[in-house]
């Protein structure tokens, strides 16, 4: 099949990103936007806009029936779900399929298997991937029982989760009940499912992930990304390839990701996430994100592959045109997320109007953002304002380029994560590469 009209069931920078590639491929775009986003940059850029509901996500971007109805009414033949929202929701993919609209993403069976952390673990184990001790629990008693098995510190994660929502670290048994209540409330609000997963917390771990591409038959990888610098388990800085790691360790992780993708007949772009021991490079499978990732541009920078284009081609039923040997990563790329959050006030969200948004520009600098001068950051959605991506021949040069880019960036008037990124970019541990997930707490103010 050919996609002629693509419905974008998302917002913000990723909606704009999808529009850019669709337009280059000659595909018309319809943005399914909330009322709060009706005058956003992606709404201006899309060929058509369909309002899916009011600001709150539960009544708009997460309302399956409304989004499907809007896509149908617009006459779209495919839907791109972006990341977050309904991107990994099997019911959504099924409803679209029933409406005769192609879902740009993996099969419904894959979404069901990978959306549930327990099922994902089982599939990974079948494919021969190592996993961490832990398990699912529904009631406080069951959570306490699991906690006794894994020991402390432990992690509570939303079973239906992703993006750090509904995730809490618990250091002591007496903190368990309070943390569980908050994690379940967030899981319910973000995903409509309060079930949690209890997992052992590895102290000096790195978060390394592998970009995979599959067409249902063949699968390849596009190298690693390191996303160890996180706050509240949400990524702040991502880079490709994973630095300061022996080649054979990197290759072992890449091979494991491809093994999993082949085992489940993966279709489209996906990301296998691993927890890697910062000292001996042993690794554990965490989850497979069956969608495009926020940090996909660093992989695009080092491989030259347009991942959105690959997603659309696979969705059209085309076999992968890339082979493993055609993927030749060059140089190093780093992405920083500029969020509307105050890093000096525990990352408190700071929605509002960006009076001025002066983003960096220059060779080796890419900015993916939906925030221009005068644009609004509504309180309903996540805080991402834009991503600054730098690419250079070596990691050392990339770090220098990042420092220069951040020194010219200026966003007025809300607090953003930019000052924090300046401190990170200037930190000798970051310059050396290979930091663990505890990096931020060791950062000098």
């Amino acid at each position, binding site marked *: 099949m050919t996609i002629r009209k693509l419905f974008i069931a998302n917002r913000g920078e990723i909606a704009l990103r999808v*529009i*850019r590639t669709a337009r280059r491929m000659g595909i018309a775009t319809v943005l399914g936007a909330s*009322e*709060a*986003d*009706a*005058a*956003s*940059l992606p709404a*201006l*850029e899309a*060929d*058509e*806009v369909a309002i899916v509901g009011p*600001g*709150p996500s539960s009544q708009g971007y997460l309302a399956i029936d409304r989004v499907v109805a809007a896509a149908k009414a617009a006459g779209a033949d495919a839907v791109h779900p972006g990341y977050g929202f309904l991107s990994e929701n099997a019911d959504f993919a099924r409803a679209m399929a029933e409406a005769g609209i192609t879902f740009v993403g993996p099969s419904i069976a894959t979404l069901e298997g990978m959306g549930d952390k327990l099922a994902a673990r089982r599939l990974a184990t079948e494919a021969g991937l190592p996993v961490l001790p832990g398990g699912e629990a529904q009631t406080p008693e069951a959570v306490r029982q699991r906690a006794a098995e894994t020991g402390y510190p432990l992690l509570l994660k939303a079973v239906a989760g992703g993006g750090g*929502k509904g995730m809490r670290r618990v250091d002591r048994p007496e903190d368990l009940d309070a943390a569980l*209540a*908050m994690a*379940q*409330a*967030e899981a319910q*609000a*973000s995903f409509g499912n309060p079930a949690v997963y209890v997992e052992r917390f590895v102290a000096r771990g790195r978060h390394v992930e592998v970009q995979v591409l599959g067409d249902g038959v063949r699968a390849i990888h596009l190298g690693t990304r390191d996303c160890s610098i996180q706050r509240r388990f949400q990524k702040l800085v991502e880079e490709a390839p994973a630095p300061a790691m022996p080649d054979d360790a990197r290759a072992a992780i890449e091979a494991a990701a491809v093994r999993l993708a082949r085992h489940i007949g993966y279709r489209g772009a996906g990301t296998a996430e691993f927890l890697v021991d910062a000292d001996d490079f042993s690794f554990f499978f965490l989850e497979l994100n069956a969608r495009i990732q926020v940090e996909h541009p660093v992989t695009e920078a080092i491989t030259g592959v347009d991942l959105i284009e690959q997603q659309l081609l696979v969705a059209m039923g085309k076999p992968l045109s890339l082979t493993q040997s055609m993927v030749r990563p060059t140089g190093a790329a780093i992405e920083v997320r500029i969020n*509307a959050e105050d890093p000096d006030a525990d990352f*408190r*969200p*700071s*929605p509002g*109007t960006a009076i001025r*948004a*002066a*983003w*960096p*520009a*220059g*060779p*080796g*600098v*890419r*900015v*993916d953002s939906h925030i*221009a*001068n*005068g*644009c*609004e*950051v*509504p*309180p*309903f*959605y*996540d*805080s991402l304002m834009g991503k600054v991506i730098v690419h250079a021949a070596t990691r050392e040069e990339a770090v220098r380029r990042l420092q*220069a*880019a951040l*020194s*010219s*960036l*200026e966003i007025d008037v809300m607090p953003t994560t930019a000052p924090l990124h300046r401190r990170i970019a200037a930190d000798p541990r970051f310059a050396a590469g290979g930091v663990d997930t505890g990096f931020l707490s060791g950062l000098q103010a």
Partner: protein
Amino acid sequence: MSDDLPLTHEDIAEITAILENSGYRELDLSTRRFHLRLARGDGDDAGFTQEWQWAGASGAAEASTESAEADPDAIAAPLPGTFYHAPQPGAPPFVQPGDEVGPETVVGIIETMKLMNPVHAGRSGTISEVIAPNGAMVAKGQALIRLNR
């Protein structure tokens, strides 16, 4: 809505490279749809910035932005968002009128940008009234709960 996106990030990088090797410090480009300013920052090794202004672009988010009345006895919303009385639907509320609270007592949560942010009482006292309804959109600084000393 347009036939074409004006410039890709590769275009911006190229134009910046041209500017960098010229004697010019900035470039302004205006069309009906947008205004772009590429400018060199102050200082010798300052980089370039790109600033975009789009005709018709704004958020138009109407999350109750009336500023709150200053109420010295009220616990104010520390940030805008949706105010909840209880940790989850059906659960008992964090506090009720008559409850004694300390500065660290959690009196409610505000959901902003998909995060649950606890609201602390901030000082000791007795809850006299819960002003903002459960599930209401509240502005930063809006009075949520009244506290007697």
